[in-house]
């Protein structure tokens, strides 16, 4: 990304109170990282229950009850969005031009669109499934995409410190 494009926004993030705290308190960064990991486990675990049920692995998980993991996933995502913004404020000039960070953000947007497609396109029909009943093929595609995209998000996130130049 071109420096002039992201510099004004990056300067804004860097000047925030949160950014200052993240840089000045030595325990802030590790603490936020830890919370980011905890959020990740709740988010990914919830997705595993729902997506694996839809794919057909664990078909006897009650589909309607599995949807109760959606609010867990949303709260976990909110936690990770907040802690993620804290990292960004700490050192925006490092994150914005980082190719792994850019891919990660792009993939999260795609995962979001995929989730909306799931919610508005498939959710209602899926809730009617009996225990052990096979989900429609399109729903399985969405579920498989969801798992694949989030695995990629984790990988790109972990790669951020290693692709700096």
């Amino acid at each position, binding site marked *: 990304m071109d420096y002039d494009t992201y510099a004004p926004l990056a300067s804004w993030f860097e000047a925030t109170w949160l950014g200052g705290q993240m840089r000045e308190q030595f325990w802030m960064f*590790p603490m936020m*990282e*830890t919370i980011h*990991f*905890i959020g*990740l*486990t*709740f988010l*990914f*675990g*919830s*997705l*595993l*229950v729902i997506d*694996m049920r839809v794919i057909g*692995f*664990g*078909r*006897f*998980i*009650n589909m*309607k*009850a*599995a949807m*109760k*993991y959606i609010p*867990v996933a949303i709260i976990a995502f909110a936690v990770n969005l907040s802690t993620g913004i804290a990292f960004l404020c700490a050192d925006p000039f490092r994150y914005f031009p980082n190719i792994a960070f850019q891919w990660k953000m792009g993939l999260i947007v795609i995962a979001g669109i995929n989730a909306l497609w799931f919610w508005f396109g498939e959710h209602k029909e899926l809730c009617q499934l009996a*225990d052990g009943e096979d989900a429609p093929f399109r729903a399985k595609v969405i579920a498989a995409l969801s798992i694949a995209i*989030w*695995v990629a998000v*984790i*990988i790109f*996130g*972990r*790669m951020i410190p*290693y692709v700096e130049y």
Partner: protein
Amino acid sequence: MGFLIWLEEGALGIFIRESLWGYPIVLSSHAVGMAIVMGVVVALNLRVLGYAKDISILAYDKLFFIGWIGFIINLISGLILFCNTPTTYFFQGSFQLKIGSIVVGGILMKVVMNSVRGDTSETLTKVASAACIACWFSAMITGRLMAYL
């Protein structure tokens, strides 16, 4: 100590320290494996603790199998990462706590799975389940802190 030095100077140790992409790739695998293991542990124990009660706990069996896949990914990637500097890691408090947490967390997971199948009281099962989650989070937190302490 001799064994740790042998490990550090061995082929895996050299690979993980010197290969350009070796470390980030193995580390990423460790993060994905963690998401799988911890994801299954959290989702399953949430149910044992009383969330999403309409799902039969026995229906989580297949998910539990996926958790094992994650565990094996992390056992392998963890062993490779350990070869990076075993002489340091082995004596690091956060590493020792991490391994201890995984052992106790694993045993507790087994206890919970046996309890939900047997006739253990619900209270006792929930206590084991809460302790199990706590152990696995302790493993994750101490693992993350290895980079700092």
